[in-house]
């Protein structure tokens, strides 16, 4: 395992994968008849050179931090949580119920309540597949995929048949009361005296909760006994069992934490941005979490950086779709390539590097 220095494994390998993905995407842009250089500068201009661009980017980043962390926690226990999408949908339902039916005096209380609601609903939705994996041996990938579809059904039922106000044609719940509305970056900048910053961008205080979640996951995985048990089970099931780790318990806990994190994405989208429960608010963020976790090597810091990258790509992609003939779906292609090269084809990137370092060591001694 220790053929390569650690920094190569952590930094160089993901970067090479990213460059291959970027190169192939550039070829695709050329094939469409646009210039990759113009596209990149347009993306940077629309994202990093305007405060509103930052506001959109960090909004997407917040979602991807939550889902990326969720997939990472499951990865550490050698579980593949592909059901982030469904868990986030249920989280949205939790947020909506908490915000609509509890009279909150102030947003600071509301965000705590909504976080609990979102986490609880996401946790339940991940808990059932976890139970089926732990006790009945049903493959968690398949069950979580099925639970994505079931969550979509439950969400449609609640939005269309239960929460939709009478007489409304829109498939959406009623608006949340104003005391639950979260301050956006625009509001915060206004308080600090920057009047025109982050204008009408959706980023809001839940970004800071996402940062806290990064810290919490770091502490959980690398500094707590529970995290040790999770990692032990993920590295080697028989060894962990021999050391007294109870697999059923760890599988349940790891998946429920994962589901809770996915669910908490909804405080950003549902409480922070739409301020009512709508359909399709997840926009595939549950799946992007897979790419983020792979790219970030399941480490909270890596997840944060990868989430920023994908936030940039999403906002940049929207700019491209606005100003060029490159459709937004180009970002989906980039995302696919990142997953492919950091995940499935990683040996293709690693094998040449490993043999390079082996020959280096031989030359030394």
């Amino acid at each position: 395992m220790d053929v390569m220095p650690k920094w190569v494994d952590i930094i160089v390998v993901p970067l090479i994968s990213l460059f291959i993905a970027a190169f192939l995407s550039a070829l695709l842009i050329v094939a469409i008849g646009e210039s990759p250089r113009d596209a990149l500068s347009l993306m940077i201009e629309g994202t990093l050179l305007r405060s509103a661009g930052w506001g959109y980017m960090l909004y997407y980043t917040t979602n991807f931090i939550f889902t990326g962390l969720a997939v990472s926690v499951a990865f550490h226990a050698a579980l593949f949580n592909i059901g982030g999408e469904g868990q986030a949908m249920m989280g949205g339902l939790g947020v909506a119920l908490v915000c609509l039916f509890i009279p909150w005096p102030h947003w600071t209380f509301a965000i705590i309540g909504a976080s609990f609601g979102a986490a609880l609903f996401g946790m339940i939705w991940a808990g059932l597949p976890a139970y089926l994996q732990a006790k009945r041996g049903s493959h968690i990938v398949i069950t979580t995929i099925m639970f994505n579809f079931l969550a979509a059904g439950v969400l449609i039922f609640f939005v269309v048949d239960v929460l939709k106000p009478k007489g409304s044609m829109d498939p959406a719940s009623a608006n949340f009361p104003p005391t639950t509305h979260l301050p956006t970056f625009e509001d915060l900048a206004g308080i600090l005296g920057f009047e025109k910053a982050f204008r009408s961008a959706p980023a809001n205080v839940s970004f800071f909760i996402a940062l806290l979640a990064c810290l919490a996951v770091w502490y959980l995985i690398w500094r707590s006994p529970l995290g040790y048990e999770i990692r032990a089970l993920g590295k080697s099931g028989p060894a962990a069992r021999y050391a007294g780790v109870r697999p059923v318990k760890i599988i349940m806990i790891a998946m429920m934490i994962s589901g809770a994190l996915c669910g908490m994405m909804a405080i950003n989208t549902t409480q922070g941005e739409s301020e009512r429960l709508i359909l399709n608010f997840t926009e595939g963020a549950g799946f992007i979490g897979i790419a983020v976790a792979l790219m970030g090597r399941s480490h909270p810091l890596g997840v944060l950086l990868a989430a920023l990258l994908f936030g940039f790509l999403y906002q940049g992609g929207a700019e491209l779709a606005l100003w060029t003939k490159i459709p937004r779906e180009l970002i989906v292609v980039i995302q696919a390539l990142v997953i492919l090269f950091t995940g499935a084809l990683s040996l293709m990137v690693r094998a040449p590097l490993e043999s390079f370092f082996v020959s280096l060591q031989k030359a030394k001694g």
Partner: protein
Amino acid sequence: MIEFLTLLQVLDSSLRLATPLLLVCLAGLFSERAGIFDIGLEGKLLAAAFVSAAFASLTGSVWLGLSAGILASIMLSLLHGLASITLRGDQIISGVAINFLAAGLTVVVAQDLFGQGGRTPPLKSGGRFEPINFPGSTSSKEINDAGPLMQLYSELVSGHSLLVYIALLTVPLSWFVLYKTRYGLRLRAVGENPAAVDTAGISVVGLRYSAVILGGILCGIAGAYIATSLQANFTKDMSAGRGFIALAALIFAKWRPWHALGACLLFGFFFALDNRFQNILLPAWAISGLLLLIALSLISYVWKKDYLDKVVLGGLALGILSIAIMVITSVSDSGANSQVKIPVVFVQSLPYVLTVVVLAGFVGKAIPPRAGGQPYVKER
């Protein structure tokens, strides 16, 4: 009472909706029986649908479209093979990547070629698979006056596109290949115990690639079917989760060809039902009775199990019980024979619920091929 003709029409559309599921399900069957999990069925289906519609639209020939669609699907299969067989990568991750690759590339290329927001233009008559009317079948105008046998013949047996009949033929064919040929025996063995196959001097890599490519061909046909026969153009994300439903059907069928036919027809029937009827009404006593039965059997099951079973399944039973009570209280003032409207989404969700139940092993446990999902590393 539902009319006979209406029933026939629902069955007819069940068959049409089951066809892509069946082809994709058999694709998954070959791949998974050889020990390669294939989450990427959805992506292959979508890619094949786009490529076949695009070629059929540009060349005007549906056969060129079909061939191109199959080719595109095989290319993605080979990518999956490269990642999961040759490079021994994670099969699930590779499948996920293929799904995204197809979802993104189809729209990007469609937008570039046709500029219609990720769609292809409607296909003209040469670019579509037309329904084949068997000799002696009546036209749709006269079908109301025909006898029941004639209605059955004209509505259900005749009048489908060629690919529907091909899909039905692949079932016995797959069964024959899997269970009656030497190749099939080796294929099943490589999914259960690749080391034994390797010891016998047969190439594990070769067998697995062949299975993945077979799957690619079947997904290709399915993709061509949804874009050139079920609909007459490609639209963004038109596979609509069929690849995953086929995966569900595969588990439901426990990786067996004939059962796959049954599972796909059943799932197709659910979709046909909800296409045809906007509101499904059932008597309240039947629904609440069924829910109570499920809840009570769950509770009796967990009675002597451990703490976790009690919390999870007991909680589930309580949830179901409360729905049953809600149903009873909501109709209690309108008499015992009142009917309850079943929300459409619940009918749509039935395939997934059934799959989870089967996976959980409460009703006939589904056990996947033993070596599935693990890359084979030759001993040195």
